[in-house]
């Protein structure tokens, strides 16, 4: 088939419509939040003293970390799924959540006596944390990988990893409402491991599933 012939076929298909990628991303984000919320409520649900805990800095700080991660990953993944879009600023934005966690860890180390550091870090929920963040995040990750297929990421492995971070940030936001371990030491350790697992899974998905 000559290129000239191919152009005839493409032109004849000009009227086919697809939702603009940007709108589709918002739709996907909505769907992912609903999926995560349903899985969360059907499994572990929020902790009973949620309203009381909501007055403490440590509890609230967890949401700051996870929501900042989700928002920055959402900005980056939208750029990564659009060919030719600049990603520099969104890449820098990805540093925000780790930096906030780092600052919180340093503050915690100042405020908590050294003898308690170990207990705070190990907490009481690490297995639940490491299993439920991936469990809540797996549905959203599937949605985001599907969206990457709908888009056109020129760096699919990186885009897949960011899909994992986005799913992780979202899942961790819900999980944080359940978990009694509010210390930044706990968050910096176990949340990171759980979210990294989703990022790795996302990178694999990007490598083998996101072809276009």
């Amino acid at each position: 088939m000559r290129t000239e012939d191919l152009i005839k076929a493409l032109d004849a298909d000009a009227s086919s419509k697809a939702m603009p990628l940007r709108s589709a991303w918002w739709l996907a984000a909505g769907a992912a939040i609903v999926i995560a919320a349903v899985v969360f409520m059907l499994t572990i649900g929020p902790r009973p003293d949620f309203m009381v805990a909501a007055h403490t800095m440590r509890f609230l700080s967890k949401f700051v970390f996870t929501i900042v991660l989700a928002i920055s990953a959402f900005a980056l993944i939208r750029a990564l799924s659009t060919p030719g879009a600049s990603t520099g600023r969104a890449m820098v934005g990805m540093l925000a959540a780790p930096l906030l966690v780092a600052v919180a860890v340093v503050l915690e180390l100042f405020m908590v006596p050294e003898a308690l550091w170990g207990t705070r870090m190990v907490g009481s929920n690490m297995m639940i944390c490491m299993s439920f963040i991936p469990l809540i995040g797996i549905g959203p990750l599937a949605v985001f990988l599907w969206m990457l297929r709908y888009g056109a990421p020129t760096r699919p492995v990186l885009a897949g990893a960011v899909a994992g971070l986005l799913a992780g940030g979202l899942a961790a936001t819900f999980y944080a409402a359940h978990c009694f371990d509010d210390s930044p030491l706990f968050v910096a350790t176990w949340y990171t491991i759980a979210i990294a697992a989703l990022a790795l899974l996302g990178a694999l998905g990007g490598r083998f599933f996101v072809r276009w």
Partner: protein
Amino acid sequence: MSGKDEAELSRLLRAAIAGDEKAYADFLHRIAALVRGFVRRKIVQGGVDPEDVVQETLLAIHVKRHTWRQEAPVLPWIYAIARFKLIDAFRRRGRRIEIDVDDIAETFAEPETETVSERDINRALDGLPPAQRSVVSAVSVEGRSIGETATKFGISETAVRVSLHRGLAAIARRFGRE
């Protein structure tokens, strides 16, 4: 030159997305020439046929045109897709190449030259279900309109459009997988 190209191509693609077939044909011809110039400059050693990459890029641009943000410049979008498809073509043949981002400005449009070699797209076309294959061939190689194709096969125009759209999408997917 690039600034004028940019404005004109953006205008054409916007019109095409709004349903203007004439604008789309114009757009596709122009970017085919641009991408051809880009790809030919990049392929210095053998193994990859530039025209195969041009065709893959055109298909990708077609099936991914919803990823273009209408207020963003169109040339970086086009070249990002062309570069991706070029790297992909080398990767499939077990080679790696580095492509400089900056030298797209020096690209010149080039016309298609006749070749006798078997095209990748023909293999992808042969892999389609018979109904889609015959519709895509009728519209492309035989140059029939949607209406003529519908009459030829005794099916509705909508059915022709659906088969054409699915066939093109399947060919584009096949390119990505090979």
